[in-house]
């Protein structure tokens, strides 16, 4: 199941990022889970504000990192889907 470009992903309540000073990296904290975030994960979550659509997120990342949209789309889709499957994120899609 893929996320439509018009859908708006957002982190669920009780799911938050934190800079882990001891280990020197960002983590995503959720019920019973701590997910280590790499630079790409951090960059994606910075754009996932809850008011930007998936399409907006791809535009922003493409501009910011000077990378072709079609090249990053798959990775971003995969990352967000993994969070959706783990009940850390949901999407709202007003167009459906």
């Amino acid at each position, binding site marked *: 199941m893929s996320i439509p470009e018009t859908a708006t992903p957002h982190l669920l*309540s009780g799911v938050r990022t934190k800079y*882990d000073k*001891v*280990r020197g990296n960002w*983590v995503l*904290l959720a019920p019973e889970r701590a997910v280590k975030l790499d630079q790409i994960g951090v960059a994606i979550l910075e754009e996932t504000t809850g008011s930007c659509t998936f399409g907006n997120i791809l535009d922003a990342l493409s501009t910011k990192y000077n990378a072709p949209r079609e090249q990053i789309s798959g990775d971003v889709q995969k990352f967000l889907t993994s969070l959706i499957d783990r009940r850390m994120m949901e999407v709202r899609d007003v167009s459906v």
Partner: protein
Amino acid sequence: MDAPQPQPTAEITYGPPIAMLAELTHRCPLSCPYCSNPLELTGREGELSTEIWIDVFRQAAELGVLQLHLSGGEPASRRDLEDLITACRAHDLYSNLITSGIGLTEKRLTGLKERGLDHVQLSLQGVDAAMADMIGGYKGGYNRKMDVAKWTTALDLPLTLNAVVHEKNIDRLPETIDMAVSMGARRLEVATVQFHGWADKNRAALMPTREQAKLCGQRVAEARERLKGVLVIDYVPADHHADYPKPCMGGWGSTGLNIVPDGRVMPCHAAHTIPHLVFENVRDTPLADIWNHSSAFNAYRGFDWMPEPCKSCDRKTRDFGGCRCQAMAIAGDAAATDPVCIKSPLHAQLQAQAEADAHADGPLTYRKMPA
């Protein structure tokens, strides 16, 4: 505590702990016959003070703990739970309240959320009042739990339902899963009773049959697929019917630590059953010293301590030789291969005993606080 402190060797690799289980109290209104608390329970007078707990939370955060599980007994039995949640947020620890629900009101839960509580894990003893209250030994417990579940989701706090399963309720797993979904829980833990301590006294009453355990595993696998994106299911199988041991604690002293109500620090909640281990206390020793230098934590860290058949086994990096406490209880040697493993000389005996207990029945021996 002047126990000899072995120095970590190059082979021992461990980082800072990710999670800490704070057993705030052994007091609990319920008396579940499989309680993971020790047979010798600590009374109120032996518990750490609010100030010490708060300082321990600070030390834990500095050490690298990310997740703080507030447990018991029933953590809501502590009147200072509010202050402890405030301290979790002040030290930026992710707080998880592991509760039976008894002792919480809508007002109290709202207050805990305002102070920064991150997540509620609610225990479930059965899918109806008759079963749940019989197992918990507390009349009215089930109805209160249903209220707590409603308040939790209405407050938009993430909810995990923790269903402990055994011979008497394991067949009702489909209803348990439906209940978790209809409550709006995001996670369900299906945890088969682990036969230590109180549960060991109730083997005849609670040991599931091999067929029950197998069906439970199949149902979990089916539900995980069907409910992807709806409900996350974590599963602790019936290890006495398995061929390989569980990766207990993800490896001894590797990722987590446990503080018991009187302040002693242990690698797992049953570690006190290993008689030669000496546990330091947060009243006397800084938490970082305990994590890094405690002889109890270093005893089974890494792989150097392993005898055969674990030492040369290619599964050792996956299951770490299983559960030290189970090895102690059944083999009489905490360094032995977990008798659950097919490579253990005690495997056949363990399975035969599990089979016998599964087909036996007996009265429930409930957990009791000392008079």
